[in-house]
């Protein structure tokens, strides 16, 4: 079987090059229909698939690439003038759009096998895919000198997603005990393969550059807390002659000096992980036996990172956010000899106040303490029982007395438990940065199904 398709689309959104051409072709071979496999009894179905396709994306706001002038009396435009002052209407281009924007093309290569064996006892699919997003359109900030108030849409480069998806189902029964097991698992790799204009994309805590996953976390490698000023000076040795310029002290965060040059700067930051799971999986188990049925659905991810920005706030200075209760025990506190003496002179026992085993750097210390680093980066892997349902259907001979053909009681629980090392509320964080999203609720439902 061969299917092929060719389309040429024009979109008014792309003013410079409105036209885009998008071919696609798909090949399928049902091997189980071939003479040499037809007689193999245990094979119900075996199908090979190959596909290639391109599609254009113009799902962007109209006018994304057309310069427009806004005008009004008030916000962003107007200015008070005259005597007496009155608001005078003004006009301005708030965002200099990128007039050379062009189509984003999604290209997909796909190879797969569908199979079913032993009368459906085992069935599944295996797919390998490669998706290229060419000239991907993303919202980005322009450099300040462009003069934009808002981010704009730009063809940033090419993004490649490669992966393997595997799903398997097994259904069988042992006497009256019927069961099914199914699962799917996918491996995904995401990478930027070309950057238009050569400059990487930066987010608040992320960087996307050639060869890196989209929105990779970018920052320092956290090494703990400086126990003494001398320790800081030893690590950042270029300040030896001018220690007064060293901005960090005992109690501040220590980051790895990656290039060993004795200065901590942008060149010591690196990719410290990305928010994409290496592995995403789900599986369900179901069984029924003499009217009792049970279904479980698990899902999980593995190998992704979460930036716990919530913790960054909870371990802050307390001016704009509440502090975590554990702060009291875990903030590093240490005094210099001068301060110790001063405290003693006031009759304060400094030894009771010190906490040199504290794991949280001084929230009032160097502003670098909250720089992007592995300090707030956590493993986002989890396994969660998404859904559990247990039901019981009363035997027919009983229910028919009530003119009821079927009566089933059940109880459903969702998000019953989660196995994770993530310290935030909920490891299911959309963007990879956790600003303290409201966690998903655990729900219990009791129910009754009746058919008359």
């Amino acid at each position, binding site marked *: 079987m061969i299917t092929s398709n060719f389309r040429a689309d024009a979109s008014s959104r792309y003013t410079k090059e409105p036209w885009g051409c998008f071919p696609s072709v798909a090949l399928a071979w049902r091997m189980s229909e071939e003479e040499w496999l037809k007689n193999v009894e245990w094979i119900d179905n075996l199908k090979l698939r190959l596909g290639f396709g391109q599609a254009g994306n113009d799902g962007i706001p109209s006018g994304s690439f057309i*310069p*427009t*002038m806004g005008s009004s009396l008030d916000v962003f435009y107007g200015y008070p*003038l005259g*005597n007496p002052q009155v608001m005078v209407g003004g006009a301005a281009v708030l965002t200099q759009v990128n007039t050379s924007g062009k189509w984003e093309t999604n290209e997909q290569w796909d190879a797969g096998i569908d199979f079913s064996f032993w009368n459906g006892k085992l069935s599944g699919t295996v797919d390998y895919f490669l998706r290229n997003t060419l000239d991907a359109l993303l919202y980005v900030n322009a450099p300040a000198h462009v003069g934009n108030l808002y981010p704009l849409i730009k063809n940033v480069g090419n993004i490649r997603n490669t992966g393997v998806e595997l799903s398997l189902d097994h259904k069988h029964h042992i006497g009256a005990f019927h069961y099914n097991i199914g699962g799917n698992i996918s491996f995904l790799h995401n990478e930027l393969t070309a950057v238009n204009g*050569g400059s990487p994309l930066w987010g608040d805590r992320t960087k996307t550059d050639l060869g890196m996953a989209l929105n990779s976390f970018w920052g320092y490698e956290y090494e703990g807390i400086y126990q003494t000023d001398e320790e800081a000076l030893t690590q950042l040795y270029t300040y030896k002659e001018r220690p007064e310029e060293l901005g960090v002290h005992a109690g501040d965060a220590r980051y790895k000096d990656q290039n060993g040059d004795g200065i901590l700067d942008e060149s010591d930051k690196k990719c410290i992980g990305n928010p994409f799971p290496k592995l995403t999986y789900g599986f369900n188990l179901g069984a029924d036996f003499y009217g009792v049925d049970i279904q479980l659905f698990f899902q999980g991810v593995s190998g992704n990172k979460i930036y716990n920005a919530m913790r960054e706030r909870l371990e802050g200075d307390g*001016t704009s956010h509440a502090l975590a209760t554990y702060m009291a025990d875990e903030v590093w506190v240490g005094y210099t000899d001068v301060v110790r003496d001063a405290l003693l002179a006031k009759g304060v026992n400094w030894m009771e106040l010190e906490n040199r085993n504290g794991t949280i750097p001084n929230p009032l210390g160097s502003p670098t303490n909250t720089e992007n680093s592995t300090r707030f980066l956590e493993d986002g892997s989890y396994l969660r029982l998404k859904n559990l349902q247990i039901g019981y259907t009363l035997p027919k001979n009983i229910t028919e007395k009530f003119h009821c053909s079927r009566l089933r009681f059940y109880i459903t629980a969702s998000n019953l438990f989660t196995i994770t090392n993530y310290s935030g509320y909920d490891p299911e964080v959309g963007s990879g940065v956790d600003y303290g999203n409201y966690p998903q609720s655990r729900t219990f439902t009791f129910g009754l199904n009746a058919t008359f």
Partner: protein
Amino acid sequence: MKRNLLWLACLVIALTGCRDYLTEIEPGTTLLNDFFTSTAAAEQNVTGCYVPLMWEYNNTYLSEWFIGDIVSDDALKGGGSTTDMADAYDMENWRTTSRNTLLLDFYRAQYMGIARCNLAIKYISQMEISTDSIFTPTMKDRLLGEAHFLRAYYYFRLVRVYAGVPITTDVIDDSERWGIDRSSVEQVYTLILDDLTKANSMLQLRSTMKAEDLGRATKGAAQAMLLKVNLYMASPYWNKQLTQDPATYYAAAKQWGDSIIASGEYTLCSNYEDNFSLAGENGQESVFEIQYMEVPWGDYGEGFGFTAGSYSQILMRSRSSLIGGGWGFNHPTQNLYDEFEPTDIRRDVTILNPADSLIETPSVEIYLGSRYLNNKYGMYRDPADQGGGFGKWSLHATRGPLNNRQIRYADVLLMYAEAALGAGDEATARSYINKVRTRVGLSEIALADDAALRHERRVELAMEGHRWFDLVRWEGVDGKGLKAHMDAYKATETPDAQSHMQEFVAGKHEIFPIPQEEIQLNPTQMKQNNGY
């Protein structure tokens, strides 16, 4: 054949037709190419060029006085605690990093102004005279002159904070042209001078402007800026980065001072205090002001722009509900208080020293030892409005109506005196310093020198956002360098205030870092300033 032609016709219609038909733009906007068709449109566009000047809030507060006053020896940060406005705390205490949000927002605001000016200059200069009946050569010149003046103003605000910055004088509507490297300090100053020279020849005298245009840039404002920028270029700190020697710039500065003085457009207010009242806005001494007014609408919203009022009043008013109930930033220092001669009436106009009975929570209202408040911008002196002698505006609690006095004629006279002194004309310098002194009833000085001039400039313009930039360009006040000056100031502070200050590093802290985020966004990967 006929059929093919029909298909072709459809295709042609599809190709040509849909482009206009499907183009929808947001309500309230006009296609850029359709906009510049009347004087009114051009004037609106130029009005829009002023707006970024008034922006004081985006992700954080970014008023220029956070740099001009607080970083200097004139003021301490203040606020609710040392950690309130951490960005300003870091800047005041030599802890600034390239991640400073105030510096990022300030940087972006200036460039939004520059981009607006670039657009206005590009399109208005293409407009034909007589586009409509009022689009005369004079009108076209005035509009272009305003845009050139403002572009110079924004670049000046950038160069004295970040040194050489990327220069663009064109509209950047294509991402291929995003990469622009930092220009040298000299290139930025050259552009500023060029724009101001154009503005001077295109703009009109204040006296010939209509009342409804009060607040727009004038020929006098352009000349005052030419005087100011030439003084900066003559000064020790900036001149080192330029090719011509100070004498050239002092001579130019003096010449521009001559022009503005000879124009007779401005006079000193007899009452110094009128410069800081609501009633005194755009008065006889005013050369250029950022205009603010009260409007009932407006909110923080998406940052920048959402207000016609100023945050400066609420930011600087005392935290005590008895005298304003503000947020208590920008406390004048004892060091500044002591700089005033005992009989100088300007001290109490500048500094409000609240009686103990007016302080509610000493631990907060007295910031690191300073109980003083900025009396110039707290609007304590307009009792007509309301609030028992500590005037208060009424329409919007946080957005004050007081204009920001950017250039006063007294400033011009002192700059002129400085230019004269630099050119070796002590007698002229002395006479102009004395004009400023006699206005406030002080005795005349017998000899004008750097010390006398710098003292006078400090007390006359205190808490108006000038001090830090003066200290930098002079490299301190006594020839011993800015570090020696700031160290000496530090020694006059309370031990509490001193404990927050890190060491001033010469060769680093005179300017601030280019925001890291902007280094990253620029495809050329701009170089960072020394030490950051």
